[in-house]
């Protein structure tokens, strides 16, 4: 049996409005199947849109911004700053004498501001008890679905510079 069949000779209105009650069941099922197929097309278009966005969106260039002077942050101390724009709040933590990490302060769950808990040595979101690792920003516990975007830091002498964002 061929998959594609030539169109019915009957006009559409005769097919859709049959005088036989048994035929009405076919009409509703056929319409519903058509609707489901269109919904499937919508999902496919959504996937294609994500693909196009990932292929054709250029990675934004990040500015180099001075974040802090090394002497101003004690070990296990934090500094808040904004990067790459004034609306993107970030948190930098000095984890040891020579180690510094910085993350976006926006929780990946519902965008509450995370803070550093020195007691638990992790980043905490107070809204829904989300916990992130200080080491790499990964989710330790709670509802956040993704790790925190990490700010790339570079040290130039006594200055710490933010030069990029990883993830997010």
């Amino acid at each position, binding site marked *: 049996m061929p998959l594609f*069949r030539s169109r019915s000779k009957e006009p559409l209105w005769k097919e859709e409005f049959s005088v036989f009650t048994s035929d009405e069941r076919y009409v509703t*099922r056929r319409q519903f199947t058509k609707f489901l197929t269109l919904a499937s*097309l919508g*999902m496919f278009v959504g996937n294609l849109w994500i693909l196009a966005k990932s292929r054709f969106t250029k990675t934004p260039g990040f500015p180099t911004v001075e974040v802090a002077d090394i002497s101003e942050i004690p070990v296990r101390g934090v500094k808040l700053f904004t990067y790459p724009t004034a609306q993107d709040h970030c948190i930098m933590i000095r984890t040891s004498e020579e180690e510094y990490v910085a993350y976006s302060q926006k929780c990946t769950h519902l965008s509450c501001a995370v803070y550093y808990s020195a007691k638990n040595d992790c980043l905490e979101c107070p809204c829904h008890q989300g916990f992130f690792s200080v080491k790499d920003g990964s989710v330790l516990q709670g509802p956040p679905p993704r790790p925190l975007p990490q700010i790339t830091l570079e040290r130039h002498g006594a200055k710490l510079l933010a030069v990029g964002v990883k993830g997010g």
Partner: protein
Amino acid sequence: MAKPERSNQRRGLVAIDSAMALIVILLIVQIWLLSATLETYLAGHAGAVLPAAIFSGLIFSGCVALNFFVKRVDEDSRRQ
């Protein structure tokens, strides 16, 4: 006015119902795939986007094929 129902008409309805159930299952998988792809992409991993789009296209092709199947069974049942 009621047309006497024949056994092959009933069989046609069963076939259409089965095809519809299969389309619904495929659609649920496709919805999950879209949400998972979006989640992965927003997490910064673009590697899964292309395979997901291909798989979604295959599912859509399956739905189109089932749609044609439903149409064909419907036309066959009406002709008899």
